[in-house]
């Protein structure tokens, strides 16, 4: 479902709302994990109006909060919006209620990965994982390596070839990674749930 502007076309009512968990349960969990009180939201849509990526999202950010309040766990954790969000904080700084939407999105992505639900934008998850692999190996991001492995994983060989070649020609992609000396300190940081779940 794609929406042009959230004001022009409110989301069509979605079949039956089956509230699996008592209302407020899911919202309370996300409030606790994200440290932002999303129940202050009064659906003014400022976040949605400011978000540059709204056209690529399946739910506008304000609706994500609504779904949380309705306890619609699957709907939220499986939506594209949480992966499309780049954390630019445009919404967070415009929200009249001081809700940190980007923190909510961060929290929901983590929950989606932890709970192993179907990821709506698997290529974005793949990309983040490749970046982290690079950080784990070198302590710094080695862009050529990241893009190469990302391409291998997603098999999008030809998409963007021209851009990649231009960047190589302009020597914007270093062949060799630069690395941190104290590798053990970096390795140590990766002993967290993300690594152990792989």
């Amino acid at each position: 479902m794609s929406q042009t502007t959230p004001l022009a076309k409110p989301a069509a009512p979605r079949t039956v709302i089956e509230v699996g968990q008592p209302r407020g349960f899911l919202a309370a969990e996300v409030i606790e994990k994200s440290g932002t009180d999303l129940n202050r939201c009064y659906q003014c849509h400022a976040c949605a109006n400011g978000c540059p990526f709204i056209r690529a999202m399946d739910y506008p950010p304000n609706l994500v909060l609504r779904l949380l309040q309705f306890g619609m766990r699957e709907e939220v954790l499986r939506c594209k919006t949480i992966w499309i969000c780049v954390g630019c904080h445009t919404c967070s700084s415009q929200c009249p209620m001081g809700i940190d939407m980007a923190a909510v999105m961060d929290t929901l992505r983590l929950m989606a990965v932890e709970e192993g639900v179907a990821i709506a934008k698997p290529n974005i998850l793949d990309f983040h994982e490749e970046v982290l692999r690079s950080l784990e190996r070198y302590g710094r991001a080695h862009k050529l390596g990241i893009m190469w492995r990302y391409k291998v994983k997603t098999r999008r060989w030809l998409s963007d070839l021209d851009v990649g070649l231009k960047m190589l020609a302009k020597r914007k992609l270093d062949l060799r990674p630069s690395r941190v000396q104290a590798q053990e300190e970096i390795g140590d940081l990766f002993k967290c749930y993300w690594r152990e779940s792989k």
Partner: protein
Amino acid sequence: MSLHHQIDFSYFPGCSMATTAAEANMSLMQSAKILGLNLIELSDWNCCGSSSAQTMCKNLSLGMAARNLSLAPAGRPLVAMCPRCLHYLRHAKVCLKKDPETHRSLEERWGRPINLDLKIMHFMEVLVRFGLDRLKQSAKRSLTGLKFVPYYGCAVFRPPDLEKEKYYQGEMEDILVALGAEPIIGAYTHRCCGSFLSATDPEIVTPLVNEIIDSAVAAKAHCLVTACAMCQLNLEIRCTSRERLPVFHFSEVLALALGAKDYEEWFVRHLVDPRPLLQNLALVA
């Protein structure tokens, strides 16, 4: 500039400045040297964590940023140019202030203190404190005639928990106006460049980038100037508009005004060659 003006800073380059945007780093170092600001690269720094660590694991994200704080020697402010790095470094400081237990455990883990009074500042703030008049006096070329869009991207937006931190809105204009350039209003200056979506989903980013560049063209700007290396790259590689404009790193324009000579090395790395524009304005030979 005489030595007693020399001021020491720890400098955090970050992954983009160190590689993809080497031209931004070179011009930044040149500018600092000319002004007598001693930027000492943070020894053995690591990636600030970036949005990928933030997405996948909060502890990892905090740990990566915090390790950099633990490497910063006491007594000098930590300076970053990349707004995202700055954001994650500051965020780590705020988090550790709120969470003394994690603070202690990270200090023990690395056997180094993490100074939570460490001043973390953006290079533009360093310049403003240096003094715009002094900056003007150090200039060798006037930027007169250069019409630029100050493109901040999302860099000035902050999560509510950083709201007490310094806001950089307007600093780019202040600095470049002091050097003779003319800011253009009416273009998109704070629209996000697309960040990692430029790598994963370029078809989402291209129309947005085109809107940004088209708005600058419509406002009759000569170029865009950005404080963020990722913005610079995304605006260059994702634009498919017929009319395109050069996109400068802030430090390139600064170094040019301060009389740096090795600009050829930076400009050949641009996808939209800025030299015709600068030659027209007689800013470069």
